[in-house]
């Protein structure tokens, strides 16, 4: 943490960057912070409560952030994949961003209530993490903490859903998605949702009814995860942002697994690796095509 503060202070003092996007202590736990002065660098913290994916703030259309000037951003391995994704998709220039990558030993599922990392409290997204030491960085900081315990809850949920009949799965999702209030917080929190105009807002033709009906909610979430196929970095910010606690991370992870199974692609923090949708192989799987 001291290393992080020191680097941030130096970057701000030298004028290399105008703002450091990191985490600070807030009234209700750790929150995102925008540090613009070197003397404030001591506010920065990094621990297992830092669940937010700060790459979201690099969206070039977030004017409140871009107006602060050149940014340095604190990322975990999973977040670094989002930065890589934005570079890959030409939303960011690599040289316009300073990446402060933290070595990570897992984060909490509920930082408001839990403190210790156990198999129950560790975030389900940390299960099987291969990015504890990010490869995309300008400064790689911190000691590598021990490997976190594994929370298999989400993987078990996916396996349980796959065992159900189509009818049972459908009623499960109907039950869940009928709670969606269409606030689109999942989209706003997502670092990879940066379209100037979202399909959900297009009205000519209107692809997705903007009111919160089951049909429209199903269409919205189906479209959202489809647009994330091969792009999702599995940071689960969609699920964390959801006021209705929809299991959006389950959908996201299922699609990510399908992408891996079919195209042998895992979300990568190397911006030069092409995303799987947009390229093809002549011998791609087509067992489902007649």
């Amino acid at each position, binding site marked *: 943490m001291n290393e992080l503060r020191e680097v941030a202070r130096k970057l701000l003092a030298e004028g290399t960057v105008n703002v450091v996007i990191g985490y600070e202590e807030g009234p209700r736990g750790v929150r995102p912070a925008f540090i613009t002065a070197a003397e404030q660098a001591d506010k920065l913290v990094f621990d297992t409560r830092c669940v937010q994916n700060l790459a979201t703030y690099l969206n070039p259309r977030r004017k409140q952030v871009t107006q602060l000037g050149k940014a340095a951003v604190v990322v975990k391995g999973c977040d670094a994949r989002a930065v890589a994704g934005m570079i890959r998709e030409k939303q960011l220039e690599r040289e316009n961003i300073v990446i402060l990558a933290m070595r990570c030993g897992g984060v909490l599922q509920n930082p408001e209530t839990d403190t210790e990392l156990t198999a129950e409290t560790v975030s389900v997204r940390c299960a099987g993490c291969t990015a504890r030491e990010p490869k995309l960085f300008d400064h790689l900081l911190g000691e590598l903490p021990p490997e976190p315990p594994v929370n298999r809850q989400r993987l078990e949920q996916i396996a349980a859903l796959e065992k159900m009949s189509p009818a049972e799965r459908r009623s499960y999702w109907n039950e869940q998605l009928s709670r969606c209030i269409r606030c689109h917080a999942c989209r706003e929190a997502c670092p990879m949702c940066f379209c100037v105009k979202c399909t959900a807002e297009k009205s000519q033709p209107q692809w997705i009814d903007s009111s919160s009906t089951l049909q429209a909610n199903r269409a919205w979430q189906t479209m959202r995860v489809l647009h994330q196929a091969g792009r999702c970095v599995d940071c689960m910010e969609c699920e964390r942002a959801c006021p209705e606690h929809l299991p959006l991370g389950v959908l996201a992870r299922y699609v990510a697994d*399908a992408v891996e199974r079919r195209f042998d692609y895992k979300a990568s923090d190397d911006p030069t690796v092409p995303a799987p949708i947009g390229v093809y192989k002549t011998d791609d799987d087509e067992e489902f*095509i007649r």
Partner: protein
Amino acid sequence: MTNDVRLGDEPPWSPKIVAFVCNWCTYTGADLAGTSRLKMDPNVRVIKLPCSSRVNPLFIIKAFERGADGVIVSGCHTGDCHYSTGNFHARRRFSILHDLLHFMGVDNDRVTFAWVSASEGNKWQEVVNETTARVKQLGPVAAAEEKGGAQ
């Protein structure tokens, strides 16, 4: 023969199936099936598109939302695309869509993906008849939904 429908006469349910087909292969193949007078179930509404890669997954979602009971998506065999690579890209997208629909509880029997070339009138006939038969067996989407969701 008269087609008089009197008030109160409910026509028996018959599935509505939407087919998104590419202009160059499947549409021509379907045309061949027609001119060859092959017998096909009359449940399929054909929508012609330039290429199978023009089929946005939203088309399929929307079709179900608006009351379709089944969907057929068909284009040129891989390697035969009029635009060289369109169906390779389409195949990648469809494979994920196929898996996701399955995971969200849309019966895979309601969605048929097929490659039908311009000379395969017979195959088009099979695709149409088989899809219709499968969807008939599953019943209407709306009824399935009321029963607790068996789309």
